[in-house]
């Protein structure tokens, strides 16, 4: 229970940092893709410039997660055939909506209610992916509706 609140607070911190970095400011996206202001590209570059050495240090120290004491399992996302096309599609949506799946939620909190249309769209797109890939689901689904999903 406390861990779940912890994740909620972490999400809050992340949203706050996205805002302060300018990632929830629509104009910056237009300016970026029109090559007039590279601020958000600098944000990503700087994040990786700090994050990569930090991750390396954690790996080197074989650090254990504070939440559960287990060694941190670094399992980066793998390559899929549909990844490049999916990435471009996401980029197109990014340019149209001026937001991404994470920043749009922070924008909602800021009172930028255009985000509601985008969020509805992200849900629809996610659902559509589920529809399209439903027959590929193996092994058998594990969630049992008779059991409660409460945390």
């Amino acid at each position, binding site marked *: 229970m406390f861990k779940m609140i912890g994740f909620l607070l972490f999400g809050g911190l992340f949203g706050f940092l996205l805002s302060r970095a300018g990632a929830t400011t629509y*104009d910056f996206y237009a300016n970026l893709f029109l090559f007039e202001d590279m601020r958000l590209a600098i944000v990503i570059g700087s994040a990786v410039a700090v994050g990569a050495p930090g991750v390396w240090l954690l790996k080197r120290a074989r650090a254990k997660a504070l939440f559960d004491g287990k060694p941190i399992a670094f399992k980066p996302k793998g390559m899929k055939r549909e990844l490049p096309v999916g990435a471009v599609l996401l980029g197109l949506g990014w340019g149209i909506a001026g937001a*991404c799946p994470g920043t749009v939620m922070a924008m909602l909190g800021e009172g930028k209610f255009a985000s509601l249309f985008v969020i509805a769209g992200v849900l629809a797109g996610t659902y559509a992916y589920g529809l399209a890939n*439903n027959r590929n689901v193996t092994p058998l689904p594990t969630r049992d509706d008779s059991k409660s999903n409460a945390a």
Partner: protein
Amino acid sequence: MDNVALWVDETILGGVIGGAAIGLFVVLFFWTTGKAVGASTAYGNVCAIGSRMPFFRGGDYEKILNWRLMFWLGLPLGGLVAMLTSPDAVSRGPFYMGERYETLFAAMLPGGGTLWLKGGMLFVGGTLLGLGSRMAGGCQSGHSICGMSQLNPPSLVASIGFFAGGIIAVQVMFRVAGVV
């Protein structure tokens, strides 16, 4: 609300500080929780609430109320605090999207664009975000920030794709509308 405060208004310093803070967050999150930052899978959790499809009943969605959903629900709280602590915060209308996009929509949509036309476009954009993030296996948070911090090659491929798409969409829209 508009005009959320930034660490620093100037582009380079503001970008460097803003990014560094996010990079520190990624490391802190790994160290504390043992998990990778990500924002797009949670939308599947929401879909799973209302769906009986096998796709949404296992794997990442086995337990709907999981850490990803909690993290995702926390994001708006951060935005709220960010805006509440912004001295120059101002309301330019609940659906205002900044000068550039507003100019674009006014020029691009018939009749200057009603709210529903604009909303329709945003819904389409969102659908591309949703579909694209599932196909790519992540979004800018998961791939560009967290994935590239792990020096993960697929995340670099994904990030290049994200940027290519963004550039194409904005360049085409703004040029066709004549508001470049």
